[in-house]
């Protein structure tokens, strides 16, 4: 099974997997995010098109909200 690491969690990788797909798999519905794939910053408008390579290290930084 090919995998990627998302915030240190290992998940299955699929061919053509986009950043949006990663967010869906992880159930990351929060909207104030900073996303890096292998150290490269991915902008919000790229979420649907940016392809995540296998074995990638994805960082999805959630900023704070509420309270």
């Amino acid at each position: 099974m090919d995998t990627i690491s998302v915030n240190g969690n290992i998940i299955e990788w699929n061919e053509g997997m986009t950043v949006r797909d990663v967010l869906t798999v992880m159930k990351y519905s929060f909207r104030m995010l900073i996303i890096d794939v292998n150290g490269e910053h991915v902008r919000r408008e790229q979420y649907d098109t940016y392809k995540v390579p296998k074995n990638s290290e994805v960082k999805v930084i959630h900023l704070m909200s509420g309270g």
Partner: protein
Amino acid sequence: MIFYYLNYANALFIFTILSFSKQKKINNKELEMSVKELKEKHKLLKAFSYSPKELFRGYTDRVLYINLDDNTVKEKAVPAKMKEKFIGGKGYGLRLLWDGTRPETKWNDNENEIIISPGPIAGITQYAGSGKSLVVSISPITDIVIDSNVGGYFGPFLKFSGFDALELQGKAKNDVIIVIDGVKNTVTIEEAPAEEINSHILAEQLTEMYADSSDPRDMKNVSVISAGKAAEHTMIGMLNFSWFDIKRKKCRLKQAGRGGIGTVFRDKKIKAVVVKAAGVTQDPNHVADMEPIRERGARFAKEMKELDPHQCRMKQEGTAHLVNIMNDYNLLPTNNFKFGSHKDADGLHSRVWNKKFTQGMNDGCWIGCTMNCCKGVDDFELKSGPYKGHKVIVDGPEYETAAGCGSNMGIFDADTVIELNFYCDTYGIDTISFGTMTAFAMECYENGIITKEHTGGLELNFGNIEASLELIHQMARGEGFGKIVGLGIRKMKKYFAENYGADMKFMNDIGMENKGLEYSQYVSKESLAQQGGYAMTNKGPQHDEAWLIFMDMVNNHIPTFEKKAEALHYFPMFRTWFGLMGLCKLPWNDVEPADNAQTAEPAKVPEHVDNYIAIYNAVTGSNIDKVEMIRQSERVYNFQRTFNIRRGYGLRKHDAQPYRAAGPVTVEEYKSLEEFYDKKMKDDIGTDPAGKTVEEKVAITRKYRENRYEQLLDAVYQRRGWTPNGVPKLEHMKQLGMDLPEVMEVLSKHQ
């Protein structure tokens, strides 16, 4: 224009008649009175005149002191040292409360005080969220200092009337209202026997009574503090601070919710405090330099306009946007924090709130707020209680209310949450504590600790809407099981143990309180840092000191004790600063600048931090930097810790948490996430769960997590400059410049 105002006056008259005709339905003669008749029943107890004083760089350097024992009213000068060390807001409240009380003063002693102070930045209208007040008192449910922040117009109007703080002490013999007239520069104490107690009516009555006319431009110059009937019968009374919504032509209410200050207010027989200002000018604070404030405010307004629709949608949904997000991350408290999500949570989804809230209105709780997040539900028809059938405006629900009065009680019906929200507000009780304490009672009921015999027939199962509504009405009437629940979880546990033979150990595990205060509405089980963010707070588990769950649990940014300790130093200190200034925290981190991701520390939102420093310097003429900003907070934070120690609390043992906050108490909880917990056991603890019973696995997990929490306490105390027992070290206080003799005297006994 004249035609318009005549029309408005006519409309208001008709509205008033309609309101009163509705009120007649409940057959309450007092409510049938006109405002004129209500006022005629007032008896003047004290009239006091003061010299006007304009603000200079955010301060008047005066406190208005009122003692209801003998109706003393006087001005008190703010000493330079107090201003330097305590800054304003919560700092002023703590300083005055320390001086006004003894270590053994109880919440209902005459000498207990309620202090309301907005802070130097409060009242500017050029930057969002600049109208907050901090309210400080000795709490009836924690027996330590409580502080609660609140919007509404009262705080800025108090400053415009000539005072940096209002200090209330003593008790009246009969119900009184206090009227601060910033136009005539007078203060009166008036017996007021006839007005309604409940806030949604009282705020309207007094706004109309004290406004110069029914012109909305005059009505908006009045703000009222009030509580409600349930504040008289429970320990969780809160204070409503009103603001007049010109567009809706109604009073809106914001709440100083936590810790029972409304209970203290009604114990003092204060029915309301009214302030009337002359109006709001461009620069009432007479700031040192307006230009940086304007520039930062414009920049922030642009962020709200362009970025908020893609980020938190605060303008459309307020903090209620978080409900479904918390559910997705297993953080939404469900059935007394047993679980973090629920299949029915879509009933409280943000899209539901988006439709319920009236869009396109002015929802800023202070003038000039471009975040506009205090949403409202208009024309909501009540289905229960004394106002059944009335159509009312409901302020909120905010996230905390939606979770507390919804999911945590097993309720996923938005209209029920709105109804509970309304009654909590008008009855003057805290939605957070109401939700958490009711959820605790429900779990006790489902475990057979209490039965229908004890509840007077109420079937307190999770999700029982009728029972939860009846409970709140009982609190307002001061009768039945509602009165017992209204004692708060800590006293409920004692009561159930003493009267029903309940198992105290189990109740301590599931009763979500720390220091006596009920938890606010986030599941902290999988975030050790947030466990500290809750239970190591000065006042009790309220998330306004630290909200670290994403940073810790999701981002995995602070994996070591050292990093968690750093976060539990920085964020509580940084967030304390808002409470010194009269600022709302939400504009800091509920919208992020477009380039925030490129900054070195995006979690701190550096551009917004820089905004605050620039604004503080521009208001006061100071020249602080981000290091001194934290120092200002540290002084006050450590003073508050010392205050608790002075009162016999504030030590390591008082930072203990209920195990429900840290992990699964029951087999049911463990089994709900068995695969997850088993993996954690293997990966984190190094123990193979295979072949073990669930009970054994619960015990192994518990031992590990409890030990981790103790290690966290050690790390955080060290970072904060405290002893292993949680006491600020003398040398640390010297370094902070907070080595005041009375502080060192208290601390030296515990080194």
